[in-house]
């Protein structure tokens, strides 16, 4: 099954680093992938200087979505909101190091969309 998704996805799926929830998040968003009904929730804690202090996610979703969420959380934690918003689909695809079929691209981008929506609601957005 190593050929299935590649080592990075399987590792993040089985040993997630950022799976969970925050006690008092400053920003929260949850959304579904309309194609499959998968759901991801992202919670963010912001530091006073508009830095992302912590990110946690959870959801009912496939391995690709969960691995993508885990990598995304790692990429943006400790960064400014502005920097976090620069992470895009290609950044994630490179980090996932697997061939993602077109039918599964939405699995990669769901956590990204959810994070962006969460950050859009924060005063630190600009």
């Amino acid at each position: 099954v190593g050929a299935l998704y590649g080592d990075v996805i399987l590792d993040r799926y089985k040993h997630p680093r950022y799976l969970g929830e925050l006690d008092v998040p400053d920003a929260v968003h949850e959304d579904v992938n309309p194609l499959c009904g998968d759901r991801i929730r992202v919670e963010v804690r912001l530091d006073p200087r508009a830095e992302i202090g912590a990110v946690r996610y959870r959801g009912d979703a496939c391995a690709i979505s969960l691995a993508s969420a885990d990598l995304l959380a790692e990429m943006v934690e400790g960064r400014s909101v502005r920097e976090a918003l620069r992470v895009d689909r290609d950044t994630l695809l490179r980090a996932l190091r697997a061939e993602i079929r077109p039918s599964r691209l939405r699995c990669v981008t769901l956590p990204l969309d959810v994070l962006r929506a969460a950050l859009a609601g924060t005063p630190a957005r600009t």
Partner: protein
Amino acid sequence: VNLGERVRGDFPILQRTVGGRRLVYLDSGATAQKPRAVLDALRDFYERSNANVHRSIHTLGEEATEMYEAARDRVRGFLGARHREEIVFTKGTTEAINLVAHTWARRALVEGDEILLTEMEHHSNLVPWYLLAREKKLRLRYIPVTDEGLLDLTAVDRLLGRRTRLVALAHVSNVLGTVNPVAELVERAQAAGARVLIDGAQAAPHLPVDLAGLGADFYALSGHKLGAPTGIGVLYGRREILEPLEPAFGGSEIIKEVWLDRVTWNDLPWRFEPGTPPIAQAIGLGAAIDYLEDLGWDAIQSHEAALTRLALARLDEVEDLTLYGPRDPALRVGVVAFNLAGIHPHDLAAALDTEGIAVRAGHHCAQPLARRLGVAGTARASFSVYTTPQDIEALAAGLRRAHDALGLRPSVH
């Protein structure tokens, strides 16, 4: 030798490999593979007789018309309908159901009327009624599904009332494989003064349909699930109900005469077939029906019943696997939904695909049913005449390997 092994050679696509592995196609409920007889019928038509139907006064046009209308007669016989006027060709089940919503139902139902559906409907037999209900202020009600995956018939008396004008339900559930007691429900609904529409998309490939005996008012099905090409389906409507209806869509073919200020409608069934119809696809449907009838329903049903029993037994042996739907094989057809604890159905389907095994995964366009089952989705294996016991064994072995590889992982709820 079982039927699956005997007929596999009739389906050219089953010779191909996927990632170097033998193709194990267990997604016939989504669409069935096509026997060579259907592919030959399409090729013959396009190479010898291709022309538009009904208005071409030349040899090819005559041939095409004759072949297209002969396909209608084949469908009539296959479904046990009394009259050829009752067989309307559509794009598929979805269009057939929408056609009833746009013609009979829009005209017959008024504010406050009720449509009785079930919790196990495919979105195709739910959303058209939702749209009409919103437009005409109708009320949608639902027959519940039991934990075993059967319709809760004890609720029918309470739900079937004076305002119920239509009962619309699946003959066979596309997720659970449950065969619903449609004959009983037709009788009860009609006794209460309601019309009945049956979504036969998942039934027609698995069991003989006798519409004259069943007495349903409408019956819808898709050709491609029977081994015909995509783009062809059937709406059966009782002649007395269709006769006074106006067409849903304007165009050629549906009219008798057109003036600048008025139009008269064509006879049944052409009144509901605007524009150039799917001619080759209808001919392909006729060939698919011939193929199934040559195999015979007795042979098909006993083959699929054996596969279903084997699948239920083998899957039950897989650790952490949950089966959905009735455990009694007599209550279902060869459609089996399941989940492996902690593994997302899409990951399961992707893992099986690496072994050349094709199953479907997700909500199967029946989200209310998934919610009723308390799951986001399921994986589903569905069988056809060409499915073999080895296919089932391959599935069970593939599931074991997927269980080992993807196993249980941490979760937060």
